[in-house]
């Protein structure tokens, strides 16, 4: 099952080897296999559909880079899209409100709420002493005074469980008052939190079914009373298709600010992560990787993406191949810049690169003293549409025209404009920009390395996509 996707993609796309760009038919064939792989990984069907719709346009027309197969190329595109849908970057707990900050833990029965409550509290209490506390982001860097309270009056010995965990972890728990109801416990916890000068109050709740109206109303009432800064939905990484229903219901009825995925130490593919993230739009903030108190980690979208697809090796292979080629490409361009032979073909390459990488880093990295320039470029806001438009203009030129922009006169301009659906003025503007770039490059070459950085920083003439 696990290495199924790469093999299947190989079968489907093998014949395409070395033929260049991915056609629509090839992509569709590949995406049928991707759909299966995602379903096998327990990504919920509506989310699978959304995913496929999102990745298709990214894949169609993509050049297959040298030394990788089309199947591998698709895996890489799919992986990157998956990372994006999973939230791109790791996100952390928000504990910035006026203390005591309330964290409310909710979820289905047995998902891991009580254990996770204690894990988070322990981590917060440790502060900077905690191993790799920095890896958890700022919210874990300071030592916090934490109070835990269990509002679980349903499960036998639930409050006892949290109390024992508190003792093991060295975290305070609210004393248990028999027969007190969740709202009463909440109020007492808030009071004790203020009185005792706590930074954070962790409220553990009883497991409940999303379709249990009464219990959902109960936890909504707790939320209203406690006004939590974070409401974390704790969910099992082994969850199947139902993940969408559960996540949606908890988000609608209680309002979720983040998700904790537990049992990531198991061998489930964890498609539920994508399902829940997609239907709630809420980030996955932490993952549970064991039963012990310190088995809590930050969520890394790329790792889960690799796991859902089950082929990290291919992703890194394509990344390495892409890096080599970008490097070669950048070297080639750098040489051209030095010789002042930067034609429209090169500009096209550069525009594509720009769009792909959100900057000129590829080229810059290769040029001496380019770091400052790079920083300047990063600040510049790229207008994707404008870049695409300029690409379209260059693409409607003939090869000869791109190599010798000087031959582009009135009639050619008209033809190019018509082909790109643009105005002749836009063609003029582009040609002028290119001419200025070439001029600047020549000057840069004369100035030598020192001047380069300065000039590159404002190399893009006004009107050029930034």
């Amino acid at each position, binding site marked *: 099952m696990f290495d199924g996707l790469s093999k299947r993609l190989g079968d489907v796309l093998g014949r395409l080897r070395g033929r260049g760009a991915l056609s629509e038919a090839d992509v569709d064939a590949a995406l049928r296999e991707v759909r299966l792989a995602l379903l096998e990984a*327990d990504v919920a069907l509506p989310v699978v559909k959304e995913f496929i719709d999102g990745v298709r346009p990214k894949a169609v027309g993509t050049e297959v880079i040298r030394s990788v197969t089309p199947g591998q190329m698709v895996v890489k595109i799919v992986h990157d899209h998956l990372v994006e849908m999973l939230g791109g970057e790791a996100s952390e707990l928000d504990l910035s409100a006026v203390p005591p900050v309330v964290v409310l833990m909710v979820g289905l*029965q047995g998902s891991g709420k009580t254990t996770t409550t204690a894990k988070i509290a322990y981590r917060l209490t440790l502060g900077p002493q905690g191993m790799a506390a920095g890896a958890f982001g700022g919210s874990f860097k300071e030592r916090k005074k934490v109070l835990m309270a269990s509002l679980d009056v349903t*499960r036998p010995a*639930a409050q*006892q469980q949290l109390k024992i965990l508190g003792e093991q972890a060295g975290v305070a728990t609210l004393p248990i008052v028999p027969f007190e109801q969740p709202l009463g416990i909440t109020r007492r916890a808030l009071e004790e939190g203020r009185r005792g000068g706590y930074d954070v109050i962790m409220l553990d709740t009883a497991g409940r079914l999303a379709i249990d109206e009464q219990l959902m109303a109960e936890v909504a009432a707790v939320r209203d009373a406690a006004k939590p800064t974070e409401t974390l939905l704790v969910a*099992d990484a082994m969850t199947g298709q139902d993940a969408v*229903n559960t996540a949606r219901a908890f988000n609608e009825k209680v309002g979720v600010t983040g998700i904790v995925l537990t049992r990531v130490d198991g061998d489930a593919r964890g498609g539920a992560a994508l399902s829940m993230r997609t239907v709630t739009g809420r980030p996955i903030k932490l993952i549970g990787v064991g039963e012990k108190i310190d088995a809590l980690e930050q969520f890394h979208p790329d790792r889960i993406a690799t796991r859902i697809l089950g082929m990290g090796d291919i992703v890194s292979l394509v990344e390495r191949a892409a890096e080599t080629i970008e490097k070669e490409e950048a070297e080639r361009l750098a040489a051209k810049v030095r010789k002042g032979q930067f034609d429209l073909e090169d500009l096209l390459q550069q525009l594509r690169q720009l769009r792909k990488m959100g900057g000129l880093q590829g080229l810059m990295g290769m040029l001496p003293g380019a770091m400052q320039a790079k920083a300047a470029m990063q600040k510049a806001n790229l207008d994707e549409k404008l870049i695409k438009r300029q690409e379209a203009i260059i693409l409607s030129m003939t090869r000869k025209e791109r190599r010798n922009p000087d031959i582009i006169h009135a009639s050619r301009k008209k033809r190019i404009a018509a082909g790109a659906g643009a105005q002749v003025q836009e063609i003029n503007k582009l040609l002028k920009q290119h001419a200025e770039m070439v001029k600047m490059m020549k000057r840069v070459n004369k100035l030598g390395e020192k001047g380069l950085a300065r000039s590159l920083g404002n190399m893009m003439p006004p009107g050029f996509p930034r």
Partner: protein
Amino acid sequence: MSGEKKSWFTRLKEGLSKSTQRITQGITGLFVKKKLDQKTLDELEEVLIQADLGVAVAGRLVENLRKTRFDKEVTDEEVRGAFADDIAQILAPVAQHLAISPEHKPHVVLVVGVNGSGKTTTIGKMARQFVEEGRKVMIAAGDTFRAAAVEQLKIWGERAGVPVIAKESGADAAGLAFEALQQARAQGADVLLIDTAGRLQNKTGLMEELAKIVRVMRKLDPTAPHSCLLVLDATVGQNAHSQVEVFREMVAIDGLVVTKLDGSAKGGVLVALAERFKVPVVAIGVGEGIDDLRPFDARQFARSLMGLETAA
């Protein structure tokens, strides 16, 4: 008795009907007596996939329907009925009771599963059922790891009116099972239910510990355990395959219990498991109360899964 049967059935249906509302709506929306074409079949397949049946089983069921009814005029009732029949057929052979044999004194039931699946709760419910059948029951608190696991089980023991044999937290689980078996024998118990700590099937160390529990008990009774139940959570997706596969290898699973079927999860993976492993399903959990344990009825499960009324 019949009153009680009705009430549990209503509860099961309530749970299942909520869980199948979407399936039902899906299919009802699809059919108002119209031709069964490829597009409709594709949509049906999706409905099944969303119930966790898995791509392979869903595909096969739909293929079956295609063969028999393609291009015919069909109503939603017919289509749902046909699916339910096919599913019931797959499930029928695995719908079995947990048979307690009187030769063994006690009949040892080892309960295993991943974390939080519902082992301890299921033991509490089973203990109650056995007591109601007039058996002498004892429980062993084999989860010596999880915080308050013993306390939790003791409360279940009180509720069921059954003694719980426990040791301090951190004690050796195999040693405890051994002593519990000794005590149960000495007291002439009919059934000994052994709770174990939750463990993920990919943790070899913990799985090895299960094998050890079995080995040690066999020093007293070479035929123990007489039943080994794997408890599955109905929300589980395709990982259930790996759970059954690995646990079965380690401790010869001879029965499944599916819990939390009162929720919105469909537990459809059971259909795939029945096909692949043919392990009996001996009970289902439909709530957190002590009486919320039911026998597994293939036809009812299948029809409820497809959102159909079950003939009384």
